[in-house]
């Protein structure tokens, strides 16, 4: 099998030094994707010919003109819920079988303009609903560290593709932890930018007030470069922030002296958190302290309600967003239905998987007349309290540090019949979606041979400080450099 690819920054240096070509990198990515496919199932589709053509174009440009961005000529992967013109956008759902997007997401336009080369689309939980990448019509993705375990979800395909060294960088979406928890389970960095930082135009909506696109990579430096490329105002997304693209990469100073990191009492003393995970995160905190940061204890009293609040809001919004899938204009349509209503009903019954149906039913219920105040409105009130908790905690600190997930990667099949237990995997991640804060997960140790992730949550608009802390941590540690040994 071909060797795993290095980080995007390493590949950039090799390209600039003339040691390799984009064509060679794309070939390696494609070969490795194909060689690992039977075991990992990380990709649901490769775009080999288009990627080869774009690589040749990037190689032809090199030397004649400056690189368009740090990602020029670098192979990357995109989750299957991001629209690319001329490619399927299936969201790992039967209901979108046969659908080919006629347009590019804003994120895709920006990546193309920057010279990045998309080699394929990655597996996910159907419509991003899940924490294990098992709820997919393509079957589960496996964790490169242990093929009997889940890579997390819902961006598990993107995480596995990066962890296995197929691509140095992939994008996912994060509605309740779907970038950060898989990053944690596979030993890589995953960044959920703040709400509105990256345009959602072309991201298939799950819960519109929570969804955000972001990068997964082995280094914080690569995530910073990726955010700088895809961020910035987009008039096609009315929730995108009216700000220019970030310049996070140049803010990676290497030192974190003077930064205060808050440790939320509730998370570190958290019942239900694997003690080995707590220990690795506490050691991570001490490493940041050695790097010059100061630690202080803070409190987030309302986070105990976060999971309940999240699953009311996300299901309500999902039930509305998924109403458009009716079998009429695109995707799968049930055959030989007797009339229009039966056609809708059968298309949706046959097209959606169990978890998606469960959430549509829950969401329809919590929005129904007579229950709206008890559920959705109350959840929005708790959300305001959570936001205040985070504002107060971040008034005295630059970032908060807590586990990303209460556990390491769990075995495939363990939770598919127990949705409540599956939902509790999101206990530490959903708050950043509910408050809109930027957050990232980075590898901070191992427990039982499996990677552990720690999470940094920042102030609104301040992805740069999170990336600076993560980068400083990675300059002092080697957890992110370790690779799973994939059986040949």
């Amino acid at each position, binding site marked *: 099998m071909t060797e795993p690819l290095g980080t995007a920054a390493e590949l950039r240096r090799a390209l600039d030094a003339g040691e390799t070509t984009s064509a060679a990198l794309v070939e390696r990515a494609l070969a490795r994707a194909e060689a690992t496919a039977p075991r990992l199932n990380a990709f649901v589709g490769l775009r080999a010919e288009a990627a080869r053509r774009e690589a040749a174009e990037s190689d032809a440009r090199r030397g004649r003109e400056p690189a368009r961005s740090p990602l020029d000529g670098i192979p990357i992967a995109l989750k299957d819920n991001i629209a690319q013109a001329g490619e399927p956008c299936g969201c790992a759902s039967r209901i979108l079988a046969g659908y080919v997007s006629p347009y590019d997401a804003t994120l895709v336009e920006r990546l193309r303009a920057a010279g990045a080369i998309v080699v394929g689309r990655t597996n996910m939980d159907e419509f991003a609903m899940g924490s294990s990448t098992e709820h997919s019509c393509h079957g589960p993705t496996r964790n490169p560290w242990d093929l009997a375990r889940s890579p997390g979800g819902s961006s598990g395909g993107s995480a596995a593709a990066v962890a296995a060294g197929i691509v140095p960088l992939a994008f996912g979406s994060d509605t309740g932890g779907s970038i950060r928890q898989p990053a944690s389970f596979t030993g890589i960095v995953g960044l959920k930018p703040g709400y509105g930082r990256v345009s959602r135009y072309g991201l298939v909506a799950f819960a519109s007030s929570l969804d955000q696109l972001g990068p997964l990579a082995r280094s914080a430096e690569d995530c910073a470069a990726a955010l700088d490329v895809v961020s910035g105002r987009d008039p096609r997304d009315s929730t995108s922030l009216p700000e220019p693209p970030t310049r996070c990469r140049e803010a990676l100073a290497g030192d974190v002296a003077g930064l205060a990191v808050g440790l939320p009492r509730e998370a570190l003393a958290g019942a239900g958190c694997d003690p080995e995970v707590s220990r690795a995160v506490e050691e991570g905190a001490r490493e940041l302290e050695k790097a010059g940061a100061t630690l202080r204890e803070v409190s987030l009293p309302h986070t105990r309600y976060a999971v309940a609040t999240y699953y009311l809001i996300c299901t309500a919004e999902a039930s509305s967003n998924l109403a458009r899938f009716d079998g009429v204009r*695109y995707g799968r349509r049930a055959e030989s239905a007797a009339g229009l209503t039966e056609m809708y009903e059968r298309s949706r019954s046959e097209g959606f998987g169990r978890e998606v149906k469960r959430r549509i039913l829950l969401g329809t219920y919590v929005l129904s007349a007579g229950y709206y105040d008890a559920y959705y409105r109350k959840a929005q009130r708790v959300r305001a309290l959570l936001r205040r908790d985070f504002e107060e905690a971040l008034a005295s600190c630059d970032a908060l540090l807590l586990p990303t997930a209460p556990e390491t990667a769990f075995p495939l099949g363990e939770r598919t019949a127990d949705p409540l237990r599956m939902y509790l995997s999101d206990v530490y991640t959903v708050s950043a979606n509910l408050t809109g804060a930027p957050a990232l997960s980075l590898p901070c140790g191992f427990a039982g041979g499996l990677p552990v992730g720690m999470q940094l949550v920042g102030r609104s608009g301040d992805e740069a400080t999170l990336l600076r802390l993560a980068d400083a941590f990675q300059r002092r540690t080697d957890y992110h450099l370790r690779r799973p040994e994939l059986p040949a």
Partner: protein
Amino acid sequence: MSGFETVIGLEVHAHLATRSKLFCACAVGYGDAPNLHTCPVCLALPGALPVLN
């Protein structure tokens, strides 16, 4: 009926006298050929977002 309160609501459908659509920039042309003035937004394609025009 003494326990009920009568509430009457009106749902009014009206064509706006605009040259383009409410949530995208597509032209409005009543009577034109079908599927002429369309885009990812007004077709509600996966991923498209409405923006008040």
